Every structure is written in structure tokens, then in C-alpha cells.
């Protein structure tokens, strides 16, 4: 029997827009099995990123519940949720968000240092990861000195440093050119497989979605599994 890493039950999310409420997600149910890669596709503004943020504990649902490793995220206090997020979830954002004042190596180390690892151990692991993504000679550069593709590679390394069970990637190739996109796709999928991680990916790119084990379409606030 395959163990589930994540499941969502009847998750809805509303936002306030002026005086009116905007329903983005409605009664979403989703089960994510360990070691699988899942892609969520949909039109812009369909709520894909919102769904991802709810899964990652970066936002809270209006109703319903998100369970990660059978732990209900909304029941966790800030300390517990932060620790949980630090150990179990790795984020790759659309716009390769990095800390501007830190080098590539330091950016990769940050989650490990927050998690309490020693600087030496964190640095060792970060160097290995950066070496694997081909940034061994760029690790002391700050984000401003790196190309878009290179920054996204750093972001992938940062997501993997604490060896989390779940990697959440929000349009990881959205802001890259075609050549860099292909490279990042390959890297992300290869690393996730090598490290035996579960991947939840949001993308517009049908080619990338097809490379995942399961593909869902988010349409009219409802999630549908695609054949």
C-alpha cells in the first residue's frame, strides 16, 4: 500500500475583494502519494498558486482541512508549523525568490541553519547540491549576479537542502526562456526522483505536466484528474 504524504478534504478559499467575497477554491479533495509527482494545471487566476500556498501552510483555508503526514496544518501553532514546514516542505517559487544580501551558497544554507544544523554541515550539503546543478563555480555570487536560470537552480537547491518529503513548485519555469526552462525541468524532475521526493507542481506548461505521474486540472474552482 502506498503511503499518502498529503491530503486535502473539502478545502475552500475565499478572498475579500472590497465588500464582496471572491470564492477561489471550492471543496477541493486531493490525496498525494509518497514518491509521486503531481502537476496541477489551469488558466491564470484559476487558484493554482493559492492551492499550493494552502498545501505549504503559507496560507490557511477558509474551510476544510489540509493534512500533511496526517497532521492537520491549521491545528499547528506558529512554532510547530514553521518547524514542520522547515523539515518537510521545500518551496520553489515562480520568480526564483532569493535573499538578495546572501550568496548562492548562503541562500541554499538558510533553511538548514533555521532548522538548527551547524554552518559546516549546512555548507557541505549546499555545496554538494550546487555542484549537482552545475553552480560549483558560482556559489559565492549574489543573486543579482546570476541569470534567471541560475537563480532558479539555487532555489531548487534551497528547497532540497533539508531533504523534505514534499517539494512544492509554483511555475518553476514561468519566468525563464525556453532553453533555461528545459534545463530546470530536467533538473527538478531528476533531483526529485534521485532524492525520492514527492513533487507537487503548478504549471501552465503542458509538456512539463505530462512528465509528472498525475495531472490535475483546476477549472471553475474545482480540481479534476486528467487522463
Amino acid at each position, binding site marked *: 500500500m502506498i503511503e499518502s504524504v498529503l491530503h486535502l478534504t473539502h478545502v475552500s478559499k475565499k478572498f475579500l475583494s472590497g465588500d464582496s467575497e471572491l470564492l477561489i477554491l471550492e471543496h477541493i479533495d486531493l490525496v498525494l502519494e509518497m514518491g509521486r509527482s503531481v502537476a496541477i494545471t489551469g488558466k491564470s487566476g484559476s487558484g493554482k498558486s493559492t492551492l499550493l500556498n494552502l498545501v505549504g501552510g*503559507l496560507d*490557511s483555508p477558509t474551510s476544510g482541512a489540509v493534512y500533511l503526514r496526517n497532521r492537520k496544518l491549521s491545528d499547528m501553532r506558529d512554532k510547530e508549523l514553521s518547524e514542520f*514546514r522547515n523539515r518537510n516542505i521545500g518551496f520553489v*517559487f515562480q520568480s526564483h525568490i*532569493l535573499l538578495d*544580501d*546572501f550568496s548562492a551558497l548562503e541562500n541554499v544554507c538558510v533553511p538548514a*541553519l533555521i532548522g538548527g544544523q551547524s554552518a559546516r554541515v549546512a555548507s557541505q550539503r549546499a555545496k554538494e547540491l550546487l555542484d549537482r546543478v552545475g553552480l560549483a563555480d558560482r556559489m559565492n555570487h549574489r543573486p543579482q549576479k546570476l541569470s534567471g536560470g541560475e537563480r532558479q537552480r539555487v532555489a531548487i537547491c534551497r528547497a532540497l537542502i533539508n531533504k523534505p518529503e514534499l517539494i512544492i513548485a509554483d511555475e518553476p519555469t514561468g519566468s525563464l526562456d525556453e532553453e533555461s526552462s528545459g534545463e530546470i525541468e530536467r533538473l527538478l524532475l531528476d533531483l526529485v526522483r534521485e532524492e525520492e521526493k514527492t513533487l507537487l507542481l503548478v504549471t501552465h506548461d503542458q509538456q512539463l505536466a505530462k512528465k509528472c505521474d498525475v495531472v490535475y486540472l483546476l477549472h471553475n474552482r474545482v480540481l479534476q484528474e486528467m487522463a
Partner: protein
Amino acid sequence: MFSLKLAWRYAFSRSNRHRSATLIILSGIAVGMLAIIIMVSLMNSLQSDLLDQVKSIESFHVQVSFISEDPKDVSMDEIAAALQQVPHVHSVYPHVNTQVLLQNPLTDRSTTARLRMIDSHIWESENPFSDRAYLLNGKIPNPTEVVLGSSLARKLGVYSGTPIAMTVLGSGRAVVLAPMVQTVDSVDTFRTGLPEFDESTIITDLYPLIDSIGPKRITYGLYLEDAYTDKAAQVVDTITTLYPHATVRTWQQVNSAFYSALTLEKILMYLFLFFMFIILAVNMKNASSRLLFVKQRELAILRAVGAQQSLATRVLLGQTAIITVLGEVIGITAGVVVGQYIGTLFSWIHTIQYFFTNKSNLLLMYPFSTQVRPLEVLVIAVLVLFLALLFTYIGCRHALKREPMEMLYHD
């Protein structure tokens, strides 16, 4: 350690908008501290100088008088000798202050003044009076001569050697007090730095007039050792034990109205300081909001990768502490340096003003100095740091209530 490292990086971020925010805030704190330090130390110095002049020139540190009962069985010299033996007493000067009418027979100008009859040795011996008062021509008056305050001499049109008609009220035969007119020579004029004293006082030797004035009116002026000038209670107790019927008053009691006015002025200064703090606090609140605003993206990233709210708060508090302490160190250092050369600075300003207006400015000519009190500086610095940390903490709590992604979208 990690949060401190992050705080240091954030405080001096290489990202331009962050660094400029830091520099603006740091400069604001430094200038604010500089202004407060200069103002407080200038006021301290002015007040301290004024009080020193009052107790050194005007009223001595302690005054002993025998108004209620004559010490009939002891002479003035014996009382002075006994007071000199009291612990912590530096020197004793028997003297009489009385009102006189002065007239310059050459110009017919006349004015009332205060005559201080005191041993002429006060000009020569080492004491707080001779430290501050000086005779313009260095001529110490003989027992039959007088010296006038420089402003008083100017008012009467008196120069060195001018005879003055002096009317004194003395003990009379038929009446209690009778006017006595004497002609005395004015041999010199003096300056003390206390304008009121120079404007109203004429000084002569005590001994020639003591018989006509009467020993009952003698007051013994005591100068105390430096450490006891403001803490004279022990000396007062000893004298009261020695002479139970004597009236013993400290310089604060003698000048109670003036002292109260200065105390009130000090309270007003602290009130003014409080308003300066309010202005500084408003600026610091805005500065904290600005720091938080430019760091929202970083906070969101840190939260996304697992930083707890407490870590984010510690980072921002650390950043505020670094910027504030550095600003304070710069401000205090600048305050001390500027304070050291405040006289020169005012002199330059005066020169420039004179160059353009061809008019002297008496205020800028005053020999200003500053007196920095470390405890006061420490209290101000701690208060400023406390305010900065408080506003950052309040801002942090407010900012961190939002979900990390909301903060990222805001950016």
C-alpha cells in the same frame, strides 16, 4: 547567532534601497542624539556655571549669623577661628552687607548700592571668590579705600582714584539708625562674571567700619572643601551644635528664590527634552515602518523556508538595535566633540555674522562651554534604544500577523 548574522546583513544590506533606508535612519538618530546631547550639556554647563558664580561670589557656601542673640563673650576673630576648625571648612570670611547711597561729586551722579565690608585678604588668598573675581588694575583696596563693580563704576562715571561720597546707615545715639556720610577713594574696579554682582556691589575692608556698623550685623561666610559645597548638612549640624543660637544657612537657602527658579528651569528643560523625544519617537516609528516595509519580501521568504515568527522578530529587533546603537555612538561622539569646541564654533558664527552685518552679537560672544554627564547620556541613549525596539516590535507583530504569501504579493 544566526539571527544576529541576518540582522547585521539586513542592517547594511548591499541592496540600494535598503542601504539608503539604513543610512537615513542612522543619520536621523545620530543628528537627534547630537542635538539632545548638545542641548542638555549646554544647559548643564550654563546652570552649573551660574550656580558656581552665585555660591562663590554672592553668598558663600554657608552663612552663619547671630541675629537672635549676640555671642557677647566671644570676639569676631574667635568665632572665625572656631568656624575655621569645623571639618570640611576651607576658609571663613566675616563680612557685612549693607545698603549705601553712592554719589560721584564730580558728575553728581548717584545710585544705591550694596556695600560689602570684608577682609581685603579675600582678593589675595586662595578661595572661590578670588578664583572668579579680579581687579582690573590689580590694586587691592587699603582699609580706607573701596573697589567698585565694573558696571557700577560705569554707571557712576567713576575711574581709578575718583573720590566717592558714601552714605551708610549706622547705629545712632539719639535714633537706632543714623546716616553717616564718608568720602572714600575708589582705587579700582572688579569683574566677577556675575553681572548682577558687578552692577550692584562696592567692596571695602571690614575693620575700619566695624565699630560704626556694630558686630551684630556681621555674617560669617564659609567656603567649604570642593566635595562638600552641595552637601553642607554635616557642616551645618556641627556649627549648630557649636553655636545653638546661630542662624546657619546654606547657599541654596540664602538664594532660595533663585535656586527655585533654576530648578524650575531645569524641569522646563526636561519638558523640552520630552518634546524632543516625542519628535524623535515619531521619526523612529516612521523609520521602523520603513525598515519593516523594505524587509517584507525577506521576511516572507524566511517564513516560507521555516523561520518562526520569533526568529523574524529577533532579526528585525537585532537590525534596529544595530542601527540605533551605531547612530547613538556617532551622535554621542559628535555631541562630545562639538561640545568641546562649542566656544570656537560660536566664535566662528559670530565672525561670519559680524562680517555680514557689522554688528556684534552678545549671545554669540558668551564663553559657552558644555558639561556632559555620562549618566544623563546613558539614560537618553537607553531611552532612545528602548523606543526604537518598542516601535520595531509593535511593527513586527503587526506585519507578521499576515500570511507569508500575502507579504510576498505585497512586494
